[in-house]
């Protein structure tokens, strides 16, 4: 949990808006540090977290969360965290000779045209929480890291958008929980993109659905060792409740967190 980001977003583990769909996107850089922030944030807030870790192993997140002060293994044992290790499940699906062992979660690897139905079923089953058990956890939260990898595996943009729409309907609207998704893009600035660039279309579709975006990019002036990039925070105005607000910050990632500052206010420059 990054304290400066909490003050920028005006949230804290004790009070945050329900029903938020937060989209984290990056271009030519790695915004996964924000996913670690949200993971530790929601675990500290006592929410029930369903995490779809499609690109890294559980121990990676566990080691980083340890430095941020949250223990993922304990949360998993207590039932607060449900973690889908995409890599581990995928190996069985991709290798021939392995019949489906009943879990259809990663079936999109075997047949990309079938879409992400299995993944959505997993989310729906795990987000509702233990019925009749110790229901001491707060609102459910879904974290996805990252959604654009399914495009690399052959799933169409429409299927990915359907998945996010269904998840939003279940998690945000029905259960008043929150959702955080990471989408990684490859920007082609020079030429017109053909329809092959699926991640841009996915990003545009998700921006339309979400309520808060955090777009991470490298510095437009080039590579710098002390400032790792810039974050554009955009609150999308919905239903005439609020105007669309945009703010731009620069950031630097440390070993135990990240610091955010206004443009030109980096400690390396001052």
């Amino acid at each position, binding site marked *: 949990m990054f304290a400066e980001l909490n003050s920028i977003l005006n949230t804290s583990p004790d009070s945050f808006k329900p029903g938020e769909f937060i989209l984290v996107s990056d271009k030519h850089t790695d915004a996964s540090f924000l996913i670690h922030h949200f993971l530790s944030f929601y675990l500290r807030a006592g929410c029930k977290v369903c995490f779809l870790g499609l690109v890294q192993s559980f121990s990676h997140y566990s080691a*980083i969360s*340890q430095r941020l002060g949250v223990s993922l293994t304990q949360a998993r044992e207590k039932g607060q965290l449900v973690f889908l290790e995409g890599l581990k499940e995928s*190996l069985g699906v*991709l*290798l*021939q000779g392995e019949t489906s062992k009943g879990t259809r979660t990663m079936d999109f690897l075997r047949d990309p*045209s079938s879409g992400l139905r299995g993944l959505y079923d997993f989310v729906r089953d795990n987000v509702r929480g233990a019925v009749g058990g110790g229901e001491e956890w707060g609102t459910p939260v879904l974290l996805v890291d990252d959604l654009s990898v399914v495009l*690399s*595996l052959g799933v169409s943009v429409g299927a990915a958008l359907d998945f996010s729409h269904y998840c939003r309907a279940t998690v945000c609207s029905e259960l008043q929980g929150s959702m955080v998704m990471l989408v990684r893009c490859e920007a082609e600035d020079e030429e017109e993109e053909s329809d092959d660039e699926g991640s841009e279309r996915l990003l545009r579709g998700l921006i339309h659905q979400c309520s808060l975006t955090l777009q991470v990019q490298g510095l437009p002036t080039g590579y710098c060792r002390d400032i790792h990039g810039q974050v554009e925070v955009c609150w999308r105005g919905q239903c005439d409740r609020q105007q669309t607000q945009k703010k731009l910050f620069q950031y630097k990632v440390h070993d135990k967190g*990240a610091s955010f500052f206004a443009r030109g206010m980096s400690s390396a420059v001052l």
Partner: protein
Amino acid sequence: MAAPNMSVGKPTADRLPCNTTSFQKKSRSKLVSIPGTRPSIQNGQLIVSTGVTSLDYVIGGGLAVGTLLLIEEDRYDSYSRMLLKYFLAEGVVCGHELYVASALDHPNDILQELPAPILDDIASPKTVEDQAKSCDPESQDAMKIAWRYQHLPKVQTALASSSRFGHYYDVSKTMDPEICQAARCHGFYLPEHSTAVTSPTATGQSPMPETYSSLLNNLQEVVHREGFDGSVPQTKSRNILRIGLHSLGSALWGDDLCCRENPSHGHALTTFLYGLRAMLRSSLSVAVVTVPSHLIQNRALMGNVTRLCDTAIALESFRGSERETNPLYKDYHGLLDVRQLPYLNCLVCDLPDNKDLAFKLKRKQFTIERLHLPPDLSETVSRVSRGELTGTAMVGSSGCGSGSTGNRHLDF
């Protein structure tokens, strides 16, 4: 600080060393020590050497066990092949097991071409000492004019870390067959493994063509049989499997990624890399993959491929291009671009402070240096070479004595 890490640092029987943190009690006998590896300085990851010490430095100390290094090939696949051979030679010298897959040459041919290691220790530290010696006589004459710069450190162009990790190889000789045979090697030669008929699966088109899925199956079989994924109990000592996959994505693997702008199996290579990543993360292995990226026309696909790998570097050799004769680049054989560095078990990665790197293959060393341009000391303003300089953002002439024609300096 030790207390919260104790629970994480306890290695169980099926826990792999790549998950350990840096805080390990020395008294624990279960601390894994595999020859040829060492824990990284930054985050305690177990790392191996790529065989090229300057490449180790550039990618942050070495290649972490359980990760994948992507090498984007240069135009004639000369230097990327050389890096692959260094990687395999390092495995032979350290006693690791090797797995080589290729569609073009038989793996045995590749293994016979490995460079010979320089086993005496005298040859290697000299290069660093020579540089230090050459700097000393200069510092004795105190700079009288540029005295402001006296206290600044001298710029070291050759990149090398202080501690020795990795070996040096003599490229002009090949490795002794006895040393080579001492190492266990598994090979995958595609023409031997291709099935006669590729039958489509009943549910529709599978995302991976036969070639990649047979490679993945073979790899998983080797990993499981030799016990790299922890399936074999700890009767024998642990070892690392070094996987070298040559020229994936090329047409020889049955993939039309390099042939067309809209390939029919656009997700074949990325699906394979996803499976490979899953396998690497759950076993004691490290992989180097070379991809002929200069043939891939769709840059977005290359971006997807890069993101599925952990470390990615790109080589661009000057051979055959106009830069070969450019006096600027006369000391180097090509440019090296670090495209991506991994974030493993920590929020930060070791970012390099300079991204303009050039490499040179010498007989006893593959050096990677910071590309620096000599100062423009010519009195005449020659603007001829401006058009020849592509990519590097510099203004200046190609050299005083280059004898370039067409000087358009104004004479009054």
